[in-house]
């Protein structure tokens, strides 16, 4: 027994490791001749079986509205659309694509993520029919966000306008203050309100699980676009203008005058550091209640406000004369053109069957944009969208802003940067910044995201 043990002690281990090795060397991977892998552009992927699977980051109530928005079309055209929403879409899509389990269509919340996914080689180019629909309905800028290396993959879906400052018209009246016309006036306004109420004027919430810090990126982007102009903004987003450059540093300083000032933040929640501990969505409740006079957040905050109660315990309203209203963060000089930063979703295909293309074409159409927008809560940059369909005053003004040719529109920069910066070091940097790290060090850390 002993002798034998010595002789072959490792045999089972070796054979098990061998199976593992064999697999390590040989499994997976796309092979053009492979019957069940999705290979080159010529191969047929997916089948016209009357069902199109869509996978996206939209969940809960918003997902139900999405399903409602295409229900009628789906019935008329005999194509069943099966939508799966996933909060962890951003991390899961990579696993699904690498694992070879792709949906027919996927809704990408960021062009950067679309770009990274295209690099994995499974995304289909946009079919001809969809191209024409796209060109009819979308501005060139919006088309370009769905392009990777000059090839069109994604079709824009919904949009959001960032950089709204939320306030209470009633409180403004009570304090005798008005909507600021310049950035400096806005900073001064906060100080004035703080003085009058002896409480901080601004509130902010950066907590968002793994994505903590993102609400701060919107702040910085607004400041960069307004202070240094669209050209500098584009260069910054493209990585040509470094985070450590004076333009970006000054944007941080301007925002810091508000967010790092213990006199001005964090209304209703605590000190500066409490920004990191406050969930970004909770801010809506404080705004509705009036405990937070000013906050910076995208148009979607309206939904949170409407879900909350005002100081009198009634349902809060969002209107120019309601409990809450919002203005777009003002430019540096009063006569500068209106600049807004916004975001949006893009739908790209992994299958190239006929039905998938039909669904994608429909989603690019003005019909769908009108259908979804009239269900409420969102807007779209689709030029065929009738602003009257927007569900609220605020959204209507946002649509008009998007459709106004004089508006300088720029896409959310952090969504366009490489993931290691836009979805990582930028977010983290802002959290550290709020925690008290010096701006210079923070900027260096963010910039270092490009090096890996």
């Amino acid at each position, binding site marked *: 027994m002993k002798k034998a043990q010595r002789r072959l002690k490792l045999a089972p281990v070796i054979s098990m490791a061998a199976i593992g090795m064999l*697999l*390590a060397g040989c499994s997976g991977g796309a092979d053009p001749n492979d*019957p069940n892998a999705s290979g080159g552009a010529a191969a047929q992927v997916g089948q016209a079986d009357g069902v199109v699977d869509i996978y996206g980051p939209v969940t809960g109530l918003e997902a139900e509205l999405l399903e409602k928005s295409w229900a009628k079309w789906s019935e008329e055209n005999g194509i069943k659309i099966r939508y799966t929403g996933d909060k962890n879409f951003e991390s899961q899509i990579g696993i699904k694509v690498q694992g070879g389990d792709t949906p027919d269509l996927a809704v990408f919340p960021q062009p950067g993520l679309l770009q990274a996914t295209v690099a994995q080689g499974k995304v289909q180019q946009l079919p001809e029919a969809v191209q024409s629909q796209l060109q009819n309905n979308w501005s060139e800028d919006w088309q370009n966000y769905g392009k990777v290396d000059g090839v069109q993959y994604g079709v824009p879906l919904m949009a959001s306008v960032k950089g709204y400052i939320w306030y209470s018209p009633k409180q403004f009246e009570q304090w005798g203050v008005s909507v600021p016309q310049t950035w400096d006036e806005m900073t001064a306004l906060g100080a004035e309100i703080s003085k009058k109420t002896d409480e901080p004027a601004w509130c902010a919430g950066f907590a968002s*699980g793994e994505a903590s810090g993102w609400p701060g990126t919107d702040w910085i982007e607004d400041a960069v676009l307004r202070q240094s102009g669209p050209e500098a903004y584009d260069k910054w987003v493209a990585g040509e203008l470094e985070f450590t450059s004076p333009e970006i540093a000054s944007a941080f300083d301007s925002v810091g005058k508000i967010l790092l000032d213990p006199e001005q933040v964090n209304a209703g929640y605590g000190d500066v550091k409490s920004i990191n501990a406050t969930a970004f969505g909770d801010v809506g409740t404080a705004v509705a209640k009036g405990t937070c006079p000013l906050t910076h957040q995208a148009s979607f905050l309206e939904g949170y406000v409407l879900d909350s109660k005002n100081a009198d315990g009634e349902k809060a309203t969002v209107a120019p004369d309601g409990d809450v209203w919002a203005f777009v963060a003002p430019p540096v000089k009063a006569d500068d053109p209106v600049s807004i930063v916004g975001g949006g979703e893009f739908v790209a295909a992994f299958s190239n069957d006929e039905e998938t293309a039909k669904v994608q074409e429909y989603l690019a159409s003005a019909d769908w944009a009108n259908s979804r927008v009239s269900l409420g809560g969102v807007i779209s940059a689709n030029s065929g969208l009738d602003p009257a369909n927007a569900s609220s005053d605020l959204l209507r003004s946002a649509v008009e802003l998007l459709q106004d040719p004089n508006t300088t529109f720029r896409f959310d920069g952090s969504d366009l940067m490489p993931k290691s910066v836009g979805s990582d070091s930028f977010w983290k940097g802002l959290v550290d910044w709020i925690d008290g790290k010096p701006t210079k060090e923070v900027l260096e850390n963010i910039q270092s995201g490009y090096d*890996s």
Partner: protein
Amino acid sequence: MSEFFQWLAGVPPLIQVPVVLLAFAILIGAILGFVEVATNGGRAFTVVRFLAAVVVPVAILLVLGLYNSVMWVAALAAVLGAVLFFVDRRSRSGAGSLLQLSGFLAPAMLLLAIGLIYPTIRTAISAFMANDGSGFVGLGNFRWVFTSPDGLTALLNTLIWVLVAPVVSTIIGLAYAVFIDKSRGEKYFKLLVFMPMAISFVGASIIFKFFYDVRQGDQIGVLNAIITAFGAKPVDWLGLEPWNTLFLVVILIWTQAGFAMVILSAAIKGVPAEQLEAAALDGASPWQRFANVTLPGIRSTVIVVLTTISIASLKVFDIVSSMTGGRSDTTVLAYEMVRQFQLGARTGYSSALAVILFILVLPIIIYNVRQHKKQGVMR
């Protein structure tokens, strides 16, 4: 097999359960039936063994459903099976013993090989490759872990988790199990501490929001409500370095104490009553009875519980992910591993972090092996 699963998908979900369990039972039954007769002598059983060694692999491959390579693979399987058969015949422990062993071990080992060993090998390889997989970088990724603030923080925090959580949960679980042992309503007492295990983490993260939440004015977090009642300013518990990691560890302790309690309570009931009685007659105090009789009696179970919770602590991910997202230096190795992989697409870094996790578990393994040897379990 794929045909079976494809067919199964068409069956109503609730019917799928008995069907798949029945299919599985038949499979296990066949394996057990075979291993029962495998070592028998005589020509008939030799034939059975031969069939098992050669026909089974071929049949499995055919059942699995093949595309372009039926004949080749079947031939390969037949050859391998024949080799297995002859090796088995000459086996020192008698013909059939090797096949018998395969019957017991093969299902688990095959699944482990494809599902865990292969990814482990892949991870180990990419730990030494550049982040984009382009080339060999030696120990570069490990150097990154030990020099970057994120990597170091993750490592240190993981050590805190693995040092605190297992010991505290086991002590609390054990104490509770001893205290309620044989008490009236023991069943319900157990349920109270077991309950955290039944709550999915999606719910648990909300539970602890009601604990650690911070704001001005009316608090919705219990901790701040207590301290503000005494006139203190609200504290951002999860941003409070360096204690915030411990506040997160508390959550794991809360869930794992129930595990420890249930297992240890059952073990305590196995401690021979007459020993306790003898000790009591000798005038031993309750504490002495516990320390000298109960504790030695449940020693191996305590080790199992400690080991299991230690591994859970090393792998902790979702608590950090949903409570803080790694902010304020709360990141841990498993969280950092996923973060580097998903957000930064840095496969090299994330694999290096995974390899460090493997290395951290070594002391636990070595300790367990030595315990096992001491107790003569591994005969």
